[in-house]
């Protein structure tokens, strides 16, 4: 952490420690390097059009540091919005910078890779959808994209997607191979770009929460909670305690069912159909229970601005504890099968490895990061209510291969089960929600939640009338996609589905 910088703490209303301050354009590079030297990471980079507020543009950067989350705002010129490239310090900034140009026209000066990222020519050159004066939408033909080619004797390319062969989100993968061995993988994403950030503009917070929950369907509770924290912090109105605890209950169920599903698919991808069927059987029991307790299998729209929309009835609480104990037993049994199965271990071990040093350099985050020694979990280091009373045990592995990611998931399943029991036991009484006030003036906030995939951050700015003016949801997949490209190197093409599933990154969450 660079010293002598005046940090202003954001008023905290239920979130972890977030420090915000203005960072001059000329100090951006030195600051980023300071964070990097301290061992911190860039978590998110986005922009906003502030010209209607009597200013230019703003570049927002959010860093993970030993102090918590540092949110720096850099004011840029309204006519020529330029800022210095920081991808040479944090490689994970590359795609975020390119997307920020495509959507807003902010230019990363000196950046190596200036190819477009989210604009597939669906809107015109020189048009920027997130500018307030964007009005036209001229659909144009899909544009060519210059992939980086590997040349040499025996090298050939395998293009895959955007429509994939399985039930999976769309994206394009370009493998350069010799025989079956992968020399290079280049991803092109952005296919599910559906204008989410523009869609937020003008919504009221209740509608915004529903949209935030649909940024990435499997991370519904994480995004909705982060969005609500952003709005509640902007309005300086925390959700009541019972709501905070119920939100954690929803988030841990989300973590549990996603890990169960992926553990099943990881068995399936090494031809152990038994694993798929057993884990999905257990997952289905939870989904049906959620439907019964909270009226939705995936807990959609249970978290709302100001609190929660569903309560945990006493009978459901009892049933939840019973199901938790049963699940703990089942998962322990099933993991024993995975650990003892020679064929499974042969495919899992040493496959798709991300060494800890590479993970640190590239900012690998979330569960994949923890499988490569990146010991960050906001619930542990920077716990906000109710995690400050739960003492979450972090699961960390060193090997960085598929086997390590499987072990992290299994460990997190058991920890989530423990947390669910603790939440049920300590759930405070009180109201489920409280009404949010009208802002009266423009205000903004940031929400930060450790979702099942990794840290989810949502920025929200409200106009005077309480409607959303600018919202940016950030999915941890942004940081992790580039590592998937590197983890496959030297592996064989048929192992790609397995490696890919062990990360299970979001397309929709990053394409927006």
């Amino acid at each position, binding site marked *: 952490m660079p010293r002598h910088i005046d940090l202003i703490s954001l008023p905290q209303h239920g979130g972890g420690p977030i420090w915000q301050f203005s960072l001059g354009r000329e100090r951006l590079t030195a600051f980023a390097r300071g964070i990097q030297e301290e061992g911190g990471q860039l978590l998110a980079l986005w922009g906003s059009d502030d010209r209607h507020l009597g200013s230019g543009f703003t570049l927002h950067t959010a860093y993970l540091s030993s102090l918590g989350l540092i949110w720096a705002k850099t004011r840029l010129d309204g006519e020529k919005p330029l800022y210095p490239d920081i991808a040479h310090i944090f490689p994970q900034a590359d795609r975020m910078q390119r997307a920020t140009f495509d959507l807003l026209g902010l230019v990363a000066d000196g950046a190596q890779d200036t190819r477009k990222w989210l604009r597939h020519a*669906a809107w015109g050159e020189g048009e920027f959808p997130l500018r307030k004066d964007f009005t036209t939408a001229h659909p144009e033909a899909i544009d060519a994209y210059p992939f980086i080619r590997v040349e040499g004797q025996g090298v050939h390319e395998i293009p895959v997607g955007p429509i994939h062969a399985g039930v999976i989100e769309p994206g394009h993968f370009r493998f350069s191979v010799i025989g079956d061995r992968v020399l290079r993988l280049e991803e092109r994403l952005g296919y599910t770009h559906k204008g989410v950030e523009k869609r937020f503009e003008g919504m009221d917070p209740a509608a915004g929460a529903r949209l935030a929950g649909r940024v990435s*369907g499997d991370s519904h509770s994480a995004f909705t909670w982060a969005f609500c924290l952003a709005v509640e912090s902007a309005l300086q109105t925390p959700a009541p305690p019972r709501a905070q605890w119920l939100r954690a209950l929803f988030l841990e169920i989300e973590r549990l069912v996603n890990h169960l599903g992926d553990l099943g698919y990881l068995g399936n991808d090494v031809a152990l159909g*038994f694993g798929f069927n057993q884990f999905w059987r257990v997952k*289905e029991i939870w989904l049906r229970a959620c439907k019964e307790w909270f009226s939705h299998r995936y807990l959609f729209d249970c978290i709302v601005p100001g609190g929660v929309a569903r309560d945990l009835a006493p009978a459901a609480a009892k049933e939840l504890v019973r199901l938790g104990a049963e699940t703990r037993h089942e998962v322990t049994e*099933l993991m024993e099968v995975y650990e003892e199965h020679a064929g499974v271990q042969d495919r899992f071990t040493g496959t798709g490895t991300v060494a800890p040093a590479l993970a640190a350099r590239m900012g690998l985050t979330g569960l994949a990061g923890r499988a490569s020694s990146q010991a960050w979990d906001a619930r542990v280091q920077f716990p906000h209510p109710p995690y400050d009373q739960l003492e979450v045990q972090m699961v960390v592995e060193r090997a960085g291969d598929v086997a390590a990611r499987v072990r992290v998931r299994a460990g997190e399943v058991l920890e989530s089960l423990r947390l669910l029991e603790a939440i049920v036991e300590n759930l405070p009484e009180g109201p489920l929600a409280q009404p949010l006030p009208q802002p009266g003036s423009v205000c903004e906030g940031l929400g930060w939640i450790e979702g099942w995939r990794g840290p989810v951050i949502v920025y929200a700015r409200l106009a005077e009338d309480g409607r959303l003016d600018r919202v940016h949801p950030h999915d941890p997949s942004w940081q992790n996609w580039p590592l998937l490209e590197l983890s496959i190197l030297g592996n064989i093409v048929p192992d790609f589905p397995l490696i890919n599933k062990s990360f299970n990154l979001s397309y929709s969450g990053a394409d927006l």
Partner: protein
Amino acid sequence: MASHLILAKLLRTGIVSEPAPPADPGLLTDPARLNEAILRVFGRAVVVRHIDAGSCNGCELEIHALNGPHYNIEGVGVKFAASPRHADVLLVTGPVSAHLETALRRTHEATPDPKWVVAVGDCAASGGIFGESYASRGRVENVIPVDVVVPGCPPEPGRILAGILAAVSATPRNHSSPQGVR
């Protein structure tokens, strides 16, 4: 060895598969009559191709569940294929993003007749919360013809299966013929 653990677990678990729901003609976009002959031909061997046209991945979670033991979709004769060229039914999710419009059209063209299109989820049905914008074409029907609409956010697996069965039990639509049998 893991085999005795697997066998013991299988014996303890037993069979959890449930009977398939009946085909729901209420999901059809056209009030087409149930055609028993078609059901006899295809009812036990329907090949489905899934296309994510821009969804949030919520509907996919429930389509995955269909492969799980409770729904046992292959047990009722429905299976997923990797290529549209092998498919009878296209299962389309999401509002259609502008970036996937061409890919969706091409996949539809690559599917041989007779074929059915099932739009899964509120976004596929109406554009949902994403609506129509510079980046979203909205509902699937805006891009390719749709036979069955399964609403829900996301629809539950049983409803998706009922929609697939409703499609193949209706009179097929010959999409490539100019007159289009409906």
